[in-house]
């Protein structure tokens, strides 16, 4: 799963009937410390995420395991809204 920020939504009238009723969001991937990463993703929303909210997304065939997405032509799903991120300070030594 990866972190992302909601930056927009998509409206589509003609689409696969199994996608009807789903909100499609445009997601900008971000690093855990909040920096933008390259590219954008289009993801189906299952949690009611709003604009600029930090979310996490599941991609690939696992996306279809999310409730509400079973047997649907979907490969990227927003599965949660992030309350907090704790990133521990990096170790300086390479040994364990």
């Amino acid at each position, binding site marked *: *799963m*990866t*972190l992302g920020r909601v930056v927009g939504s998509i409206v589509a009238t003609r689409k696969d009937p199994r996608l009807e009723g789903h909100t499609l969001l445009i997601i900008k991937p971000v*690093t*855990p410390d909040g920096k933008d*990463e390259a590219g954008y993703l289009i993801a189906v929303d*299952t*949690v*009611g995420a709003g604009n600029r909210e930090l979310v*996490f997304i*599941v*991609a*690939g*065939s*696992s*996306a279809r*395991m*999310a*409730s509400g*997405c079973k047997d649907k032509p979907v490969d990227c*799903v927003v*599965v*949660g*809204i*992030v*309350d*907090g*991120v*704790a*990133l*521990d300070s*990096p*170790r300086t030594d*390479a*040994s*364990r």
Partner: protein
Amino acid sequence: MQLGRVVGRIWSSVKNPGLEAQRLLLVQPVKPDLSASGKIVICTDCTGAGTDEVVYWVRGREASVPFQPGEVPTDATIVGIVDELHVDANAVGKAERGRTSVS
């Protein structure tokens, strides 16, 4: 499967019902010499791994297999905690040289 190191965690109260009660850990993929390699991923966990532990994790559809028969929508799961790592220094050296010449 890939090696990684647990570097943090995230928490979330509004989430897909399939992810209820799952710990979500931030994992930095690492090379056999434990140096960082690639982007940090969010992993579910079936081992009880903690901060700074070296683990191995699976990516893709298989990531939800440890939680069967439950249906957990995850594409990355920690499936083991590494106790020890033995690397043939000569073999790694050759591999590293090979990679360098490609890039």
